């Protein structure tokens, strides 16, 4: 059944500029695999080589982060919206000096 997938701006160029695409699947894994089949440029961008979600990507089903559900095995059904967003992180750790004294 078709699931609506919302893509972040950084990945839209791999999907013909679309912000939303429809793909089939009954789990997040199936949806993301189908997405990579339909748009080969997305392959490797969302699922890492080890088969898990890429650490710099967050995937949601409706309002829930799939990491707090069943991860790639999270079930989806018609009417669900899958959103993909980049994980936004950083900080000064790499150049932080220990406080003196």
């Amino acid at each position: 059944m078709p699931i609506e997938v919302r893509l972040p701006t950084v990945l839209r160029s791999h999907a013909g500029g679309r912000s939303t695409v429809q793909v089939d699947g009954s789990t997040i894994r199936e949806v993301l695999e189908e997405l990579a089949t339909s748009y080969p440029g997305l392959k490797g961008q969302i699922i890492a080589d080890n088969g898990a979600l890429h650490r710099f990507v967050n995937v949601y089903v409706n309002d829930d982060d799939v990491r707090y559900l069943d991860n790639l095995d999270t079930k989806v059904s018609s009417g669900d919206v899958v959103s993909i967003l980049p994980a936004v992180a950083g900080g000064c750790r790499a150049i932080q000096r220990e406080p003196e004294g």
Partner: protein
Amino acid sequence: MFRMLLLRSEIYEEIVAHCIRGLPAEACGLLSGDPDTATVQRCYLTRNAAASARLYTVDPLDHLRADRDAESRGEQIIGVFHSHTHTDAYPSPTDVEQAPDPSWHYVVVSLRDIYPSLRSYRIIQGVISEEEVVIDGHSMIGRIWS
């Protein structure tokens, strides 16, 4: 591509205040607006899921809500801001490594000195370029360098 970031002073104040309130941890948020003109229309004050003085992670659910809200207003997320509590307003190697989108503006607020310092950068393929910050039509780089 615009090499500047246009802000209103109210948004500047919201960003800096959020960073101060977040002390001693780093604070973070997202910037929404028009990517074609590099104009920030609003900022989303997000939680730092890392809750650390040395790291930030925009809370994933806050990010989702901000993204949806921006889209419902015909805007999009065009950048991120975060604070450096003890270092200068320049992207760290961690910031560069994890910069998610080359089209975004990366704002860093330093709280190291007596007054906060807000600066903005583009990070494209690991290369950092500072850009002009214009607040209510006034160039902040011009005020520093003149």
